[in-house]
């Protein structure tokens, strides 16, 4: 069995890949212009001619698309094909505003399956794999995206969805599951529950995990690798662009190969929107090259990452992006200071005396914002001596102060009082009277 799912595409010489991208960019720009009124208006306003794209560099002349554009077009205003050609829709939760809806034609679903299947192969999987999908099924793209991707790879799929962790573990063992797809926090909960149930990983056939849909620090990744003892494949995707499978991490464990035959990616400074040099962090901007139902030009993902320069030893030629280090809209403004939860996480993870689980609680005291960090001490921490706890508190507060430039109150919590969710972790609880948003 090949180690690649689509070797001719995944290992294509990069200059050839760019030719393919240019051809597809010309096609998608025209499709958007001719079929979606918003794009016709935007391109005309910006004075760009979709019929005269000379090189990939020309993408920079095109206007950005943002999440609000998708909200405004709710539900089907950005469809580029007649409704009859759309065979499925997905939507974001809409918890922070109007939901965003994306549609898929038969070909769109085929492409999505292929993109995700590449990741199954990156884990050494294929038709012999048993893939347990523990993402939620429904309008959220996670469950069905992983499901059809695993089927495309020829694997046997166990469609578990989320919840009932003990049953998940029993099935995982009884069915000989080799690959688990879940959010990182849920994978961690599964690992901890396996230990609590007194089981050992030797009783499982698991060889790899495909984890995504929420931010995950390097330390948490290490913890999951250590507890499950398997290869970790980070999967990136967002429903607006497709769903999970836009980029996936190969066995080199140093970045995610972005499906460049399907997506044209740029990384820009989130304030100036100018491109940043390769290797520097910025906001990921994606143009879908082949999507038929809801193609997007220069969609601002709000995800912060960077291109990882250099060739990959796995043989794949598609550019790699780093794991997502944060979101431009995760940024908290606390007493006028910009704070990313990922900065706090970095500090938390640098202390062995506390577990990687944490929660940030924002409140208002008088007119000032207060930030409290809730942490749990590690099981072997000598909490018998209050002096040891107070000393830890001081060192943690000092590290946070020097990293964030603001004072953070530390609260030690009892084990497992900090929520480990079965979906996206609730890391930030904002109870402020006036919430500042960027």
């Amino acid at each position, binding site marked *: 069995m090949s180690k690649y799912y689509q070797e001719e595409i995944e290992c294509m010489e990069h200059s050839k890949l760019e030719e393919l991208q240019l051809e597809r960019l010309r096609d998608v720009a025209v499709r958007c212009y001719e079929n979606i009124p918003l794009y016709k208006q935007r391109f005309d306003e910006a004075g760009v001619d979709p019929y005269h794209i000379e090189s990939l560099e020309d993408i920079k002349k095109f206007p950005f698309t943002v999440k609000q554009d998708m909200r405004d077009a709710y539900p089907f205003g950005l469809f580029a094909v007649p409704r009859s050609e759309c065979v499925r829709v997905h939507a974001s939760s809409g918890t922070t505003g109007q939901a965003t809806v994306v549609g898929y034609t038969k070909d769109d679903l085929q492409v999505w399956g292929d993109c995700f299947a590449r990741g199954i192969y990156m884990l050494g999987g294929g038709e012999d794999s048993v893939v347990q999908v523990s993402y939620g099924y429904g309008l959220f793209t996670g469950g069905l995206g992983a499901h059809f991707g695993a089927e495309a790879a020829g694997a046997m799929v166990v469609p578990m969805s989320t919840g009932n962790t003990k049953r998940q573990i029993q099935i995982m063992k009884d069915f000989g599951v080799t690959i688990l797809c879940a959010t990182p926090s849920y994978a961690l909960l599964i690992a901890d529950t396996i230990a609590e149930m007194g089981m050992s990983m030797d009783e499982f056939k698991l060889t790899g995990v495909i984890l995504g849909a929420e931010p995950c620090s390097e330390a948490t990744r290490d913890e999951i690798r250590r507890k499950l003892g398997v290869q970790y494949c980070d999967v990136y995707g967002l429903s607006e662009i497709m769903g999970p499978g836009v980029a996936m991490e190969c066995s080199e464990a140093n970045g995610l190969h972005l499906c460049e035959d399907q997506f044209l990616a740029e990384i820009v400074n989130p304030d100036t929107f100018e491109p940043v040099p390769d290797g520097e962090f910025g906001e990921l901007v994606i143009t879908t090259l082949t999507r038929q139902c809801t193609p997007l030009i220069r969609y601002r993902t709000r995800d912060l990452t960077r291109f990882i320069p250099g060739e990959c030893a796995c043989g794949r030629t598609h550019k790699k992006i780093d794991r997502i280090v944060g979101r431009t809209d995760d940024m908290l403004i606390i007493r006028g200071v910009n704070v990313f939860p990922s900065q706090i996480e970095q500090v938390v993870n640098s202390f062995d005396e506390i577990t990687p689980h944490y929660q940030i609680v924002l409140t208002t005291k008088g007119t000032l914002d207060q930030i409290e960090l809730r942490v*749990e*001490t590690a*099981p072997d921490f000598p*909490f*018998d*001596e*209050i*002096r040891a*706890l*107070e000393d830890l508190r001081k060192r943690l507060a000092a590290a946070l102060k020097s990293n964030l430039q603001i004072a953070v109150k530390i*609260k*030690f*919590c*009892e*084990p*497992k*009082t900090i929520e480990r969710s079965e979906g996206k972790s609730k890391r930030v609880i904002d109870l402020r009277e006036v919430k500042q948003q960027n």
Partner: protein
Amino acid sequence: MIEQLTVFIQNEKGRLSGLCRTLADANINMHDLFIADTSDFGVVRVFCDTPQAAAKVLDEAGFRASVTKVLAVRVPNEPGGLAHLLETIESMGANIEYGYCFSRGEATAIDVLKVVDDTVEGKLSEAGFDVVSAEEVYKLD
């Protein structure tokens, strides 16, 4: 040295009663209980029967519990009883992390001390102090 059960609890309603109920349901008897509290958490120190089993029961119930070795010395229940003990330990150059006292009956009191230096117990015995053994305080594991 005797074994003290130590439990970390958040300074919140219901946590202490939850701890006591958990031990009660496991049929573990407590003899003495002391709380060192701060504004957001407390450290509860307990003398109970079968401290190792107690820690396990609490751990399974989601508490952060451990067993700590502490020194217990019986001193006369009269002025200067504790002072004499502390001065002796001081003269040995050992540092005391924390301590507390309780009396059982009229004649004597028991002073419990967490001392960093493990050799202090032997030295106090040699110096004529009445060092309390575990079985005098609780049922062993």
